[in-house]
Each structure stands twice: as C-alpha cells, then as structure tokens.
C-alpha cells in the first residue's frame, strides 16, 4: 500500500537514516584507536530491501524467510579503505566522512521533498481544493 503511494522514497528515507547512523558513528569514533570505518552500500541495501519486501511472499509456515532486515540491512555494510592509515589503527578520515554525511543528508532531504509533495498532492485529491 505505502509502496504504491510513496514508491522508492519511503524506503530510501529509512535507509538514508541508517546510513547517517553509520557515518555519525564513524565521525564519533574519529579518535578511537583500532576503530575501522564503515559505510552502507546504499544501492545494495535498497536492492535487498526490495527483494525481501516485494518479490518473495511466504504463504506457508515452512517457507524460509529472506535475510533482509528492516533496520537497514547490515548485510550491505562495507569497510572503508583508508587513504592514509594512522599509527593507532584507526581508519576514519574525517574529511571523507563529513562529505559523505553531507551527501547522505542532501539525499535524505531530496527524498523528504518528494514525499512532501506526494502528501500534498494526496491532500489536494482528498479535499478537492
């Protein structure tokens, strides 16, 4: 139902939030020794999300559930390759994390805009004004 109404953006919003979680954790741990920076492969996560949500429906209790999880698909998490590895084993490059975070925030905002106008047009259809 919500898929037909809001298309890809409802999922993109929750995945975008999950990705910002990961990036925020990287920025928070920028000074933690031995911390390995992570990122979310957005395309892969979205694919997993759609595969688990739309195509496969379990109609019997003996069907196996697909691995995708609603929280944002930790299966799509990838390690970041450091450009300049530091002596304490930390692989966070703050500049990269900041730019990725800005990008993620912008994409989140784009999805929000689409959702917003969708809701508005629905309201127009409902109230007929």
């Amino acid at each position, binding site marked *: 139902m919500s898929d037909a109404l809001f298309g890809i953006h409802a999922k993109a919003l929750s995945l975008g939030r999950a990705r910002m979680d990961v990036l925020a954790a990287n920025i928070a741990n920028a000074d933690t020794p031995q911390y390995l920076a992570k990122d979310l492969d957005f395309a892969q996560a979205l694919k997993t999300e759609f595969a688990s949500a739309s195509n496969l429906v379990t109609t019997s209790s003996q069907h196996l559930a697909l691995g995708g999880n609603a929280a944002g698909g930790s299966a799509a998490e990838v390690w970041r390759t450091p450009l300049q590895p530091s002596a304490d084993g930390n692989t966070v490059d703050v500049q990269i994390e*900041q730019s990725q*975070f800005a990008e993620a925030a912008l994409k989140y905002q784009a999805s*929000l805009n689409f959702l917003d106008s969708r809701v508005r047009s629905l309201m127009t259809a409902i109230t007929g004004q």
Partner: protein
Amino acid sequence: MSTFRIFDIAGSALSAQSVRLNATASNLANANNVAGSPEDVYRAREPVFSVATDAQGEVAGVRVMDVQTATAEPQKLYQPGHPLADGEGYVYAPSVNVVEEMVNMISAQRSYQSNVEVFNTVKDLTMRTLTLGK
C-alpha cells in the same frame, strides 16, 4: 529506538571529547605546579577512547574507557630558594608537554565541532520529517 540513535551517537562523542578537553585543561593548568618530592608531582592525565556498542552489537558511539596517568618521570629542577625545595635544593615539576597538550586541545575541538555539525544536521532533518505534509 533506532530513529533517534544518531543523537546518542553524536552525544556520546560530545561527552567523550569534553572529557578529553577537561584532561587537557587540567594538564595545562598544572604544567608549572612544582612539588617537593617526586611522588607528590602532578601527573598528566590522558583519556582512552573505545567503541561503545549496544545490546545488538551495533556501534552506538564512543565512550571513555579509562583515564590514564602519564608514567613519565618528573623533571628535577635545582631551585634552592624555593619554599618547597627538598634537602638538596631540588623541586620536581610535572612532565607535561605543553605543545602536545595544545595539539590535543585543537584536535578535540575539531572533533567536537564535527559532532555538533552532525547533531544539528540530523536535528533539522528530523524536524522536517516530523512536519511532513504540513
């Protein structure tokens, strides 16, 4: 709740960085604090960070694991006129490296700023999400 997890993450980093700033402030404040014996000398403090994980094993920010005191030997200064000088005329100064502390301070400040930026961005986005369709 996972929707507001990001605030916990950024918040934990803010508190960890402020612990680091506090330690730096304490080290700098006591840099010239001499004592009459090597045991009484102030020793530099340094916090050690580690990754904080939640019950599901996911990264949930950063925490201060320990505040270590420096093991470096105090400096022995010959100042016979000093009221705290021992029998041989020596006072002991802490081995605080002021340049190192300043670098630490700038690093902590920058990290703090990054996390405030994350916090503000997410706050704005969350407010916009909450007012969706209005």
